């Protein structure tokens, strides 16, 4: 087994433990690269059938290309797709036009997720977060409990070793099951390459019509706050090569992370992925 085989095996193990432990669970899906690897691994874990719903938290600031991809993938993978929009916040006028990105991210992502959780009563969410994305995510567990207020008690996390996980949940609590925790951005791309996993075209370099430079998205979020980085990588092979040498961080193009010091930690303690 090589290291991708090992990562795949551990992710599948986690998927199966989660499905076994929780009767009500769902998998948030953003259509991004990690999300599509999650779908792929779920198909493998359950021999072709994803036995729980897939949730897209639609901020209403989605790139149109991503929504096209969503329709395509829903059919391709036979997904039980649910879409959650925080209509109430949008009605109040919460949006990037008027509010800061941390507030908007919280309202349109975290609160929208909470609304879906309240509606469906999920005990567990399978997420695609990775340790290498952000220093707060580095401290995550595979099975990470959240209290009824969605808060992450990172000061007193349960022990987790030898593949024995925290699967007990109280009323209103849920567990984040982090199936990609050990993967790096490079691992994700190597796996996409090896398995030929379909992904949105926005990850590949295209000419920016405003300045004529070649750019690509390394991480995808809401269009007003997600920016492409300069890159000429137009194929997966070129992306892999680029990642082996780059020192620009993956989420550099995601404005909500950099809005203020510790923005990511604040977002995450309140329930953000």
């Amino acid at each position, binding site marked *: *087994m*090589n*290291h*991708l*085989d*090992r990562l*795949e*095996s*551990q992710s*599948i*193990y986690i998927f*199966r*433990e989660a*499905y*076994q432990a929780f009767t009500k669970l769902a998998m948030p899906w953003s259509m991004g690269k990690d999300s599509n690897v999650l779908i792929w691994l779920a*198909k*493998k*874990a*359950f*021999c*072709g*059938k994803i*036995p729980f719903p897939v949730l897209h938290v639609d901020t209403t600031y989605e790139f149109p290309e991503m929504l096209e991809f969503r329709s395509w993938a829903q059919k391709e993978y036979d997904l039980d797709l649910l879409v959650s929009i925080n209509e109430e916040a949008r009605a109040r006028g919460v949006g990037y036009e008027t509010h800061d990105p941390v507030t908007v991210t919280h309202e349109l992502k975290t609160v929208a997720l909470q609304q879906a959780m309240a509606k469906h009563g999920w005990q567990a969410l399978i997420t695609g977060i990775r*340790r*290498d994305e952000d*220093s*707060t995510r*580095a*401290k995550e*567990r595979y099975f990470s409990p959240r209290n009824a207020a969605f808060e992450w008690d*990172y*000061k007193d*996390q*349960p*022990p*987790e*070793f*030898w593949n*024995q996980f*925290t699967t*007990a949940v109280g009323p209103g609590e849920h567990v984040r099951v982090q199936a990609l925790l*050990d993967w*790096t951005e*490079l*691992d994700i791309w*190597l796996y996409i390459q090896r*398995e030929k996993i379909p992904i949105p075209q926005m990850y590949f370099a295209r000419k920016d019509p405003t300045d004529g430079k070649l750019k690509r998205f390394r991480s995808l979020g809401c269009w007003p706050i997600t920016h492409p980085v300069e890159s000429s990588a137009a194929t997966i092979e070129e992306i892999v090569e680029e990642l082996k040498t780059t*020192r*620009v*961080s993956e989420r550099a193009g995601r404005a909500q992370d950099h809005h203020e010091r*510790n923005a990511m*930690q604040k977002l995450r303690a309140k329930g953000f992925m």
Partner: protein
Amino acid sequence: MQEDKLKIVIVGHVDHGKSTLIGRLLFDTDSLPLGKAENIQKACEAEGMEFEYAFLLDALLEEQAQNITIDTTQIQFKSAKRPYVIIDAPGHREFLKNMITGAASADAAVLLIDANEGVQEQSRRHGYLLSMLGIRQVIVAANKMDLVGYSQETFDRIRSEYTEYLKPLGITPRHFVPISAKLGENIAVPTAKMPWYHGPCILQALDGFDMPVRDEKQPLRFLVQDIYRFDERRILAGRIESGSLSVGDELVFWPDRKRSTVKSIELWNSDPAPLSANAGQSTAITLTDQIFVERGQIASHDKECPAEAREFVANIFWLHDEPLRLDAAHELKLGTQSVEARVVKFHRILDSSTLQVATEPRLELRKNEAAEVLVRTRRPIAFDAAETLPVTGRFVLMQGKRIGGGGIVLDAAIGKNAQQEVKSGNITWTVGRVSREDRSALLGHKGAVIWMSGLSGAGKSTLAVATESALHSRGMASFILDGDNLRHGLCSDLGFSPKDRAENIRRAGEVAKLMAESGMIVLTSLISPYEQERERVRQSCAAAGVPFAMVYINAPLGACEDRDPRGLYKKARAGEIKGFTGIDSPYEPPAKPELELRTDQKEIIVCRDELLALIVELTRRTGQYRSEESDPGAAI
């Protein structure tokens, strides 16, 4: 394709320089994101603080405030040879659970000792835990050599002291390296400051470690995680922890020892389907026969089977604030198996920082302690010795929702296991008679006869029902012997003459005693009017060693007659029933009841709780110690 990453954990006493070493490794191997070091340097200047390499890691606010690592962090870096994942595990005693969480997944370890402070409590404890976790690739780094003037003498002293400590644990450090993480001496490049040292620097020593191998030649252990029936297929999903399996192989499922043959290996998006699967793979199979297989079972081949037993010897460590108490019930998880288990004997309790054996006998294992113990499970489980097959040789004990501690099965536990007998098909893993002690150990309490006597309508049945329900919800096995019900069956040949009444009591007493011997808490609900007959039951129980309590359910005749729940008093007064106790047949109140309950003066709940307290006391196993959580009677 990228090379495999080696997972290393850096452990040691608090403030011995773990975060600094990691910061330095990242910096010296040029593994930081662009601008990260500069940003932190600027932030330090702005706040008037001296820059430290440890800040490179201190991502969370709390860490900066307290200046100690509170949780496991994973960081990647690369040497010229290969990529690494560093698990930064906290050194503070409070966070041992996090240290274990981090270290348990490591392939190798760096143990840091402050040369200025020497070997400290956590230096020893972490050494011990590394051995428990099965991590054998270890280097010891004596840090802060700059503070001791790069003294060879200091270094040699630490080396000999710590080598002595590690020896009985079976850990032989690959290298002892003198370093200064803060100044970068002997980290990524060999130092010039200590010409007396001729070994490798940290990075060279790390590069000398081996990648872990999962041996496909080891015996097959396929751990069943789940059974899927999404379509016409019945799929067994699980991971092969060691060995390999192929289509056509005959498998034995433990415990249970059902057999079947691998019909197919199921893999989505794979055409043709694979014909074999190997160690480390999460796979899925179908079988030729529809045998009953469930989560938790371990499949092996016919030869080289796991052990199957209800008892084994293990080394355990405890992490929970609440101590692990002798005989308390805990959920034990081994692989995907889950079973109720108790530690029934502490062979020896170790102070993990001194390796001193506790001399006084103990009934509990406290936080951060370790022990060799005898574990007994409620039903048989399958396992291996950790030394041979680590994954099926280690387990955790839950304390409530959380992992309370972990353990490894010792070789001694396996003994002459049943594998050779598998073929014969009639294996007994329990030899000899099941003793009363065995039964009470299984149930967690002793059996007993609670004899409730009183007038008709005094409240015996009501109280018995309330008490049984309370006992049941506390996990205690109980049963009501009701006078009326007995008369429908066992005593249907008896009437209400004094002689028949005496015989009725005798039979009820014998049945109650037998049931109590089987482990039940028997609540009798019989008028049982005669002192002599009741005392005979008491003597019979005493002779058999069955705990007995006489409970007088006392309500005055007037009160009973007012209640008259079934209209019997009315009929007796009208002469329609003859020989009715209290009306035209005597009731002799118990002379010395263990408990008297005035149901006309106290609420039923109050009476029930008094009775419960008596029962819990009476059925408690002697010398036993239980936590509130697992003690069925503690909440009363």
